[in-house]
C-alpha cells in the first residue's frame, strides 16, 4: 500500500466513499485507543472512513498540517496543541468548527467553561476541545515514607519542594530530588497562571494582539531563582528540552521522587509505578508561595482544514462531535488521564466510582475546578507561541547551567519573544 500511496498522492475519494485522515500525536496505547474510536465511528457511519494517523508530536503535527494545507492536500482532522490556536487561526487554513457541528448533537452548556474559554477567541469557537490536561506533580510515596516524610502531605510551595528534595536525597538512595522536562508549559505558563500573572500584555493577548512579554517579572524570577538553586544544589535532574520520556523514565526508575507532568499520561504512569514497585502519589503543581489562582488547560483541540470539500468537512464535523460524546470522553479519560471536556462525562465517571478508586486521576480535575477564571488562567494567546516556547526553553538551559544570570536570561526571553511578536504582527495583515 506504500507504493499506492506514494504514487497516487493523498487520499482521494470517489463515489461518495469518504476517507479522512485524522492526524494525532499519540503513539502506543493512546494512539491505539484513538484508532479504535476512529474505527468504531467508521463502522457506524456509512460512507465515511476515518483513518487515525500518528503524525509525530504537536509541533510537527501543526507544521505538517499547515504545509499540507498549503499544498492543497490536507488531512481531514488535525489535532493541534492549545498554544497553536492563534497561529492556526491566523493561517486561515481551517474552518471554524462551530460551523460544522451538527447543532442538535452538541450541548455546549455541558462543556467545561475553562476549556471552552481557552479555545474561544473573539467569541468564536474555532476548534473542538478534545484532549485537555493540566500540570500536576507526581511523587513517589514509597520514597517519601522511606525518608520519613508524610506521603499524604506533598509539598505545596516551591520551598517545600526543595526541603522535601533535600530530605529524600539525604535519607534515601536517590541522588536528585525532582525532575520535569524543560517545557514552558510547566515552568512558565502554569507557574504564571498559578501566581495570577499574565505572560503577555493585552490581557494575555485576549484583548488585542500582544506586544510585550513578562518573563522578567517577579513571577518569572520566583520560579527561575528557585529552579537555578535546585540545579546548583544538584537537586534538579535535567532531562532535556521537552524531554517527556526522559523525565518520566527517571521518575519511574526511581532516580527522583518527584515529577511535574501532564495529566495526559496518568494511565501509563500508574502502570509504570506498579511495575517499578512504588506507590504513586499526585498533587497540585507547587508554586512559589503556594499560590493557587489556578492552572491553564493544556492538551489539544481538533481542527478541520478549510481546503476540504464540503462533504468531507461535514464528515469531519460528525467525527469530532462523536469524539466529544459523553461516552467517548469518559472512555478517553480512563485510557489516558486527560480530563473529560464535558461535565456529563465527569458525572458519569463519578457515579461509577472511578475517582474514588483512582484518586490520582481526580487531582487534575480538582485542580482545574479550583481554578479562578482570570486573564492569567485563561492562558496566553499569541501567534508566535511555538517560537516563544523554543526561546524560553533554550534560554532556560542557559540559566539553569549558569551560563547567564536569571535576570539576564529572563530579559533575553523578553527581548527575543518581543522581536518575534513584532515581526509576526508586522507581517500579519489579517483581521483587526
Amino acid at each position, binding site marked *: 500500500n506504500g507504493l499506492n500511496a*506514494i504514487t497516487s498522492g493523498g487520499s482521494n475519494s470517489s463515489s461518495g466513499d469518504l476517507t479522512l485522515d485524522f492526524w494525532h500525536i499519540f503513539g502506543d496505547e493512546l494512539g491505539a485507543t484513538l484508532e479504535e474510536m476512529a474505527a468504531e465511528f467508521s463502522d457506524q457511519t456509512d460512507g465515511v472512513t476515518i483513518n487515525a494517523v500518528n503524525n509525530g508530536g504537536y509541533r510537527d503535527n501543526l507544521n505538517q498540517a499547515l504545509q499540507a494545507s498549503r499544498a492543497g492536500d490536507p488531512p481531514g482532522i488535525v489535532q493541534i496543541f492549545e498554544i497553536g490556536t492563534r497561529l492556526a487561526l491566523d493561517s486561515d487554513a481551517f474552518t471554524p468548527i462551530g460551523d460544522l457541528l451538527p447543532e442538535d448533537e452538541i450541548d455546549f452548556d455541558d462543556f467545561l467553561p475553562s476549556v471552552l474559554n481557552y479555545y474561544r477567541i473573539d467569541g468564536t469557537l474555532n476548534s473542538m476541545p478534545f484532549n485537555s490536561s493540566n500540570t500536576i506533580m507526581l511523587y513517589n510515596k514509597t520514597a517519601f515514607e522511606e525518608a520519613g516524610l508524610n506521603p499524604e502531605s506533598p509539598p505545596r510551595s516551591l520551598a517545600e519542594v526543595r526541603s522535601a528534595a533535600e530530605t529524600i536525597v539525604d535519607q534515601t538512595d536517590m541522588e536528585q530530588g525532582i525532575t520535569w522536562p524543560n517545557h514552558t508549559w510547566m515552568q512558565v505558563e502554569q507557574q504564571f497562571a498559578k501566581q495570577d500573572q499574565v505572560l503577555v500584555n493585552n490581557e494575555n493577548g485576549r484583548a488585542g494582539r500582544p506586544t510585550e512579554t513578562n518573563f522578567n517579572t517577579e513571577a518569572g524570577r520566583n520560579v527561575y531563582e528557585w529552579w537555578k538553586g535546585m540545579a546548583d544544589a544538584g537537586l534538579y535532574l535535567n532531562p532535556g528540552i521537552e524531554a517527556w520520556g526522559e523525565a518520566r523514565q527517571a521518575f519511574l526508575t526511581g532516580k527522583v521522587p518527584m515529577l511535574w507532568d501532564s495529566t495526559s499520561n496518568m494511565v501509563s504512569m500508574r502502570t509504570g509505578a506498579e511495575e517499578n514497585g512504588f506507590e504513586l502519589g499526585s498533587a497540585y503543581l507547587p508554586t512559589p508561595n503556594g499560590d493557587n489562582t489556578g492552572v491553564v488547560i493544556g492538551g489539544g483541540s481538533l481542527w478541520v482544514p478549510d481546503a476540504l470539500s464540503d462533504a468531507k468537512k461535514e464528515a469531519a464535523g460528525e467525527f469530532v462531535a462523536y469524539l466529544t460524546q459523553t461516552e467517548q470522553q469518559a472512555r478517553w479519560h480512563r485510557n489516558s488521564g486527560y480530563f473529560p471536556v464535558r461535565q456529563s462525562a465527569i458525572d458519569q465517571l463519578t457515579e461509577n466510582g472511578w475517582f474514588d478508586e483512582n484518586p490520582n486521576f481526580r487531582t487534575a480535575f480538582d485542580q482545574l475546578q479550583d481554578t479562578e477564571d482570570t486573564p492569567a488562567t485563561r492562558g496566553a494567546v499569541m501567534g508566535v507561541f511555538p517560537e516563544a516556547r523554543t526561546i524560553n526553553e533554550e534560554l532556560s538551559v542557559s540559566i539553569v547551567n549558569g551560563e547567564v544570570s536569571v535576570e539576564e536570561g529572563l530579559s533575553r526571553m523578553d527581548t527575543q519573544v518581543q522581536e518575534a511578536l513584532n515581526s509576526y504582527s508586522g507581517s500579519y495583515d489579517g483581521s483587526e
Partner: protein
Amino acid sequence: MATETDQPTARSARFTDRLPDHVPMHLGLVAAIALMASPLVLAVVMSTQTTTEVYQVTNVGIGSQGLSNYQAALTEYNFTTYMVNSLVMSVVIVVAKVALSLLAALALVYYELPYERAIFMFILLTLLLPVPVRIVPLFQLMADLGWTNTLLALTGPYVASATAVFLFRQHFMSIPDSLIETARVDGVGPLRFLFGVLVPMSRGMIAGVCVITFIYAWNQFLWPLVAVTNKSSQVVQVGIRYIQGSAQAGLTQWGLIMAAAVLALLPPLFVLLALHRPLLETFAIQQK
C-alpha cells in the same frame, strides 16, 4: 613449505624485522575500525533486547526479543511502507538520473554543439544550489503543482544532476578517440553509438553513479520531511523521526528504535558493499 625448514633463521629474522613496522599499524586499524563499527554492532545487539534489557545499561548480550522488534517496526510502525517508499524513490531517482545524464553527456561530448561550454557550465553551476538553498520555493512549487505527497515531489528535483553529467562527460572524454573515430568511419548513428558503444563501455561508471545516487537518495531526510506530509507516503529516514517521536509517551523503546535504524541502514550498506569497486573507481574520477 619446504623453504621454511630450509631457511628457518632467515625467515624468522625477517618476520621480526617487520614486526615493529606493521603490527602497530594492524592494531591501530583494527582499533579504529572497531570503534567506527561499534555503534552499529551495539545497535544490532540492542535491537534484539526488550526495553527492560535495554535499560540495564551494561547488558550487551543478544536480547530475548529475537527479531520481534523488527517485526514490530515493520508491521506496527509502518516501516514496511516507509522502506518500500524509500526503495521506489531511490530506484526511480537512480534510473532517471542515469538515463538523463547519459543523454546529456552524449550531447555534450559527441555533438557539434554551439555554446557547449556555456551549457556545461549551466549544468555545473547547479552545484551551487543544494536543496537548503532553494527549499522554500521548491516546497511552494511542489504545492502549486499539487505534487506534495507524491513520488514526483520526492524524485523530480533529483533526477537531473550536475555530478552525474560531469562524471559521464569525463568518462566519455576518456574513451580513446580512435574508438569514436572508428565509429565515424563506419557511419554509426547516435543511438546505436550510445547503446552499442558508450553504455557497455561505461558499465563501471554507470554502476558507480548508481551507487552514489542510490545512497544519496536513500539517505535524504530534509526534503522528504518537507515535501511529504502524509505518513503513508513518507520515506524511511523520516520514519525514524516518527518512531523516535512516538516513544515520547512512556519509556522509550530503544530496542525498537534500533531495529528501525538498522532497517534504514541495510539497503545502502548492502549496495555499498556489493558495488564498492565501481564506486571507488567513480570517485577517483569525480575528484578531477
